[in-house]
């Protein structure tokens, strides 16, 4: 099996895996980074969202062989800073229920947070519409996100 060097959460990780293995399964099965979740395998639910070069991407739909020299950030990388404003806002509004989709929601919001001063409502809606939640936490995610960007001014 070919060997790949991946830059994940600021560290270089070496994995030996099939070239067509989606990043999702490299993270979960090879590297033990299980905060990134499997939901649909087809880029339909967004639970597996990570940042690749600061863009929110569906890790179930990116093959490991396409990731050389790219910077990958997962929920575990973000959570090294437990004081990150996204986490604080999520806790304040209790945006999580079962919690399974939340890493994908948070990484999606992070891509906006890292990019814009203050994204438009349409930007937020477009980004979050791709991340499904079955418990129905959308109203609280909306409150958490609205406050997150309001605080930033």
């Amino acid at each position, binding site marked *: *099996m070919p060997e790949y060097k991946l830059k994940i959460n600021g560290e270089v990780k070496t994995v030996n*895996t*099939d070239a067509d*293995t*989606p990043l999702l*399964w490299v993270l*979960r*099965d*090879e590297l*033990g*980074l*299980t*905060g*990134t*979740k*499997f*939901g*649909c*395998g*087809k880029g*339909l*639910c967004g*639970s597996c969202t990570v940042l690749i070069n600061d863009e929110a991407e569906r890790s179930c739909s990116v093959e490991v062989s396409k990731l050389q020299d790219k910077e990958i950030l*997962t*929920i*575990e990388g973000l*959570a090294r800073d*437990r004081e990150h404003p996204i*986490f604080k806002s*999520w*806790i304040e509004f*209790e945006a*999580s*229920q*079962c*919690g*399974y*989709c*939340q*890493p994908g929601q*948070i990484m999606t919001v992070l891509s906006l947070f890292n990019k814009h001063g203050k994204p438009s409502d349409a930007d937020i*809606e*477009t980004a*979050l*519409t*791709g*991340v*499904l*939640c*079955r*418990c*129905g*936490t*959308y*109203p*609280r*995610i*909306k409150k958490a996100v609205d406050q997150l960007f309001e605080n930033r001014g």
Partner: protein
Amino acid sequence: MKRRDFIKIVSLSGGGLILAGFVPSVFAGNDSNGNNFQGDDPDKKGVFAPGVFVRIDSTGLVTIIVAKSEMGQGVYTALPMIVAEELDVDWEKIVIQQAPAGKEFGSQTTGGSTSVRFSFDNLRKAGATARMMLISAAALVWKTEGSNLYTENGFVIDRISGKKLSYGELVDTASGLPVPSDVKLKDPKDYKLIGKKTHRKDTPPKIYGTALFGIDVKLPGMLYAAVKRNPLAGLGFNSYDFADAMKVNGVVDFAEISGKIAVIAKSTWQAFKAAEKIAVDWQKGPANEMSTQKLREFCISKLDEPMEVIKSEGKSRSEIDKNLKMIQADFELPYLAHAPIEPMNCTAEFKDGKMEIWAPTQNPQGVRKSVAQLLKLSEDDVRVNVTFMGGGFGRRLASDFALEAAEISYKIKKPVKVTWTREDDMRHGIYRPFSFHRLRGAVNNDGGIEFFGHHVISSSIWGQQSGNNPSPKDAGIAEGTTEIPYKTAGFHIEGTTVRNHVPLAYWRSVFHSQNPFAVESFIDELAHSAGADPLEFRIKNLHNNPRLLHVIKRAAELSDWGSKRPDGTGVGIAVFEGYDSYCAEVAEVTAAGARIKVNKFWGVIDCGLVVNPDTVEAQMEGAIIFALTAALKGKITFSNGTVDQSNYDDYPVLSYDECPAIQIEIVSSSEKVGGVGEVGIAACAPALCNAVFAASGKRMRVLPLNG
């Protein structure tokens, strides 16, 4: 502190405490600090364990055991709040652990909106018992009367001298004391925690990505399995060819399990790839002829046939004054999948004659029992650890996914995790039954309901699961039809059950997800047939039911019911009583041609005394969104006996941009604790469709609306 032997106490499900030589189980799973733990054996250090729900160690660390499954509804917070309230401990300093399957915990089934409702008294006693024993211990140490002592934030304090001892310092003494049979519970007016909006203990580990869900379990030496199942539920295979699958990198083995074929590999991805390459000749059967279209035609043909009477009161239909207008309407609801975002999965390890399972299950005791039965093991040799789960909604009450993992591990003698693809989950699920409804009714000249008739056709979930063939009256299909909140001069309920091969499931609120849709939609139709306002009509005809009346009035006030709205925009109301709770919902929609935009939902719930108002509000929001998904989009259909849908593209769920604004009000109450999780479901679809009628004049009697 000196180590000593501890008296272990088992709490019986009835709430009584007995002394026993019980050694607490070795727990595995999540704690609320975000640690995944295994083998935290309370015997290793000095612990005071009065009953199975509370442990206090010599450092004063209080561990509260949750024996229900946390699937998003907040039991990891609400249940410990009840214990902590009576125990008088610092909420910030407690740790919560998940119980494995065990008879000592009472029923661990998480469903029926029962977790807080049925655990409340027992958990209060658990906390109060520990507190009382700590007071007795302090009285012994200080050689004083217990009546001089009180507790606060993890300390016993002497009212007179002001001396203090922490719970941790009292662990040794308390462990040697007899367990009081009768304990005094707090007066609810003294509650400091119960009733206060409290942050969830499970949120931090979940948002940091450290929480252990079933799919995250990894054991040393574990292999990964995918399973091929006959698309025609209930049948197995004739033959299969594994040659191509064996060529996939990482594949190590395969196993036949109860009519299915499992492929075992070194990673999930390799197992998924290999499973697609197994060529199988599946068994076929008469169910191959089944389709949604044929089922529909059959049920419609049965609608007008007189069927078994389930309940009949007052005037019969033929006795109704012929001058009154008898209206009739048919309603239709499809099969539904639960489609939790975490697909079914389970991990099992069979070793030295014992089976250990890590399952995202709503029914750990059921998993234990069914695994033991399948593999002819003693239940004592089957251990079931409960993980967090990415949504349950009733799907994880079944044990099918756990049996697969157990059977594979049993055969290959290695630890294995079975993961279902989304397609497996959608096509090999267990489904909320379809239903057809014919309603008939008439309003008299006083605006009262002269006649209300309902014929429901559906399938019996428990009938199928138990292998019985219950009569319509006992089949469960009439849930929500026989007790409607309105006065009627004539009331007539009939039922017809249909049996087929489609595996059935309890789905959040069960038949309350369908029967109240027909009932509350038809009440609206009756109101309109009499030229009455649907809100006024409901209030006028309501039985004496002050709590339901109150939520109806509050929902009307919050939604500004009588106000003039723009053309094409309308509101609809529906009400529900069940699970010892009361609920009214109002929907506002704008209809533009065929397009329906849901603007807002108002929901008012009276669930008696509230433990954590924040999770009650979240459950109401979630229930409305879950039910709205079903009403707008949800539909599982069958062709050639097999499920047509496969993933979230053809079984869509409501997305962020489609979610309406939702406003929830919780009635302040000191009544008996009611259920919450399912309460918000029933009124959603009828409120929505009644609003569509108000907005467009069009009656929506077939769900989903966008189907």
